[in-house]
């Protein structure tokens, strides 16, 4: 594991056992996160971005079985593979909520309506920092002040229904940050909020990231939010990362046909108005009994018949920090992969490896 990295996800799979059969929702995801950076995980619903995050924290549903490796640079335990830990054991509990915490999508649902806000924030403090009631309350209130909740003495004793959506999201952030985590997973934290509140929350997260020196794994489908928040972006499609690069690079120079389509289908205010938006035809297929082909084959406008429907491209690096998984790409690394795969398909070469596990 690299010194700079706080998290390395290696060949992560998540299988869901359903009555209809086995659904592989995450199919070999590899990425790493540096300390203090923001990585955006972008994709449409059902592409496996939420399951990837839940696998990191070990809070997946019973039906979902993760496999692979998730290496985390923990303070208490050193380098540890989170998946190898007992998901209900003491060790993961010392990481979950303390070193890695999570902000959920809907602040209205994430809080219990039966307890006061202060009580719920305090839960994490008492569990991880101090058992002392007075001290833990002070710590909780301090964090509430930090996230911009006014009149904390009164707010601490209020119930979730007395908070507005934006304030609740602030409280949720306070709850996530109270133990000073090294890594924060934010699963669509602003999707349920209005644009003006969204802008406030995003700015708050940015400034808190500096204060706490956190790495943020930011999950969203909103490309505007990604542009504002993220240092690096990984685009997921059908359980795989199809492209990853620096944020500025991915907007200026998207390489994978899916990324191009995704960016093209969002209208930018102030840009030339096309009569029609660019749209990707068709819909995301169900990740069950997938053929051995590129997952995007059916919807792709740059597919190569006889190649893309027979083999699946691996993620290869085309420029420093820019990786894509596509056969039809003019870069040398992609062409090399294509030649190799074509040779295998013709039966001229022996397949090196069955499944792609290249990082």
């Amino acid at each position, binding site marked *: 594991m690299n010194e700079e990295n706080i998290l390395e996800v290696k060949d992560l799979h998540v299988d869901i056992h359903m009555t209809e059969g086995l659904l592989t929702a995450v199919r070999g995801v590899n990425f790493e996160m540096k300390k203090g950076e923001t990585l955006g995980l972008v994709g449409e619903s059902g592409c496996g971005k939420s399951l990837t995050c839940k696998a990191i924290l070990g809070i997946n549903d019973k039906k979902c079985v993760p496999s692979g490796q998730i290496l985390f640079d923990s303070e208490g335990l050193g380098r540890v593979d989170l998946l190898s830990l007992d998901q209900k054991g003491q060790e993961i509990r010392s990481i979950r909520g303390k070193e890695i915490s999570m902000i959920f999508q809907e602040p209205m649902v994430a809080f219990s309506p039966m307890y006061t806000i202060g009580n719920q924030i305090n839960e994490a403090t008492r569990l991880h920092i101090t058992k002392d009631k007075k001290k833990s309350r002070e710590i909780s209130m301090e964090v509430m002040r930090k996230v911009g909740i006014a009149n904390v003495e009164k707010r601490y004793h209020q119930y979730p229904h007395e908070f507005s959506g934006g304030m609740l999201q602030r409280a949720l952030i306070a709850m996530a940050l109270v133990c000073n985590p090294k890594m924060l997973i934010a699963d669509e934290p602003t999707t349920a909020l*209005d644009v003006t509140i969204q802008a406030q929350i995003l700015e708050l997260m940015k400034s808190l990231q500096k204060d706490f020196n956190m790495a943020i794994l930011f999950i969203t489908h909103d490309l505007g939010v990604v542009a504002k928040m993220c240092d690096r972006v990984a685009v997921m499609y059908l359980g795989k990362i199809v492209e990853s690069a620096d944020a500025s690079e991915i907007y200026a120079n998207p390489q994978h046909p899916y990324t191009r389509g995704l960016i093209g289908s969002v209208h930018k205010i102030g840009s030339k108005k096309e009569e029609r938006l660019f749209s990707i035809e068709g819909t995301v297929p169900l990740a069950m009994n997938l053929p051995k082909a590129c997952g995007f084959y059916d919807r792709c406008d740059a597919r190569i018949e006889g190649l893309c429907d027979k083999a699946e491209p691996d993620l290869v690096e085309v420029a420093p920090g820019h990786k894509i998984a596509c056969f039809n790409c003019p870069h040398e690394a992609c062409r090399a992969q294509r030649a190799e795969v074509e040779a295998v398909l013709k039966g001229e070469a022996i397949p090196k490896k069955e499944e792609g596990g290249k990082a």
Partner: protein
Amino acid sequence: MNKDNILEVKGLHKRFTSKGVTVKAVTDVSFNVKPGETIGIVGESGCGKTTLGRCIVRAYNASEGQVFYRTKAGEEVDFLKVDKKKMKEIRKEIQMIFQDPYSSLDPRMTVLDIIKEPLKANFPKMPKAEMDQKAKAMAEKVGLNPMYLMRYPHAFSGGQRQRIGIARALVIEPQIIVCDEAVSALDVSIQAQVINLLRDLQKELNLTYLFISHDLSVVEHISDKVGVMYLGRMVEFAPAEELFEKPMHPYTEALLSAVPVADPTIQMERIPLKGEIPNPANPPSGCYFHERCHYCIDKCKTDSPALTEMPDGRLCACHRAKELALRGFAYEADAKKEGC
């Protein structure tokens, strides 16, 4: 009523009373719509945009005001005053597309039945075969495979369900469609498909859209004119490009500055708003926005500004609209629509 307009909303109010508390959901909203136009209505949650849409289809009865509508036959009616029988006729011409494609379709009806339902309700005497044929033709038009019409909604994806909702609204050949957050629940790539479909249908059938949404980039793309609402009032109403390039109301300016743009090279400086949206049951005195406004003067605290016409024909409800130079989006030189 002006000859060119298909719809004129004048001084529309809607109040809800519960437990002795009156909430003014919509206060004094007026605007005009020409046939074939798309009017975007934007604003934050709770600003009354959905209530306004529902008043216009008369799902709610407005508390006060007038909504003039020109029927297909060319007749002018104030449909807040018409009787039930007449209203039934008018309903055929104004339809609605709903936000959530999952809850707005009856799970126990086949898709064909869902699309046929408005025909059954409005043209009970129509022969069954004709109904089937009309429904099938409409399904094809919105891009649904006619083979799948005997299936139930659960078998369809979100984008396809929204197509079903669109087919249902269009099958009785309405003039006006109220789209209440019609694409908000869809994924980005599917959103683009549905927006393209709505535009194609508009051209083909000469439809008028009232497009209610909180997504400003979608509204900018699809609308000819945009109305901005705040706390039940319409604060600004103007052609889309003008409004986005040069907003006149301070609230519009703040709203635009908060929109995340899908381009990391554009980093707009956000204009922070003080405080939160006030409680609509107890709105502030004077201009509803004055407590949060950076340009507030003494007059704003006492006098409520009316939506007035500016020299260039735009509407704005602000005492200082003429003197303020507010910041909007920088448009590329050739970005404006030509004669559209």
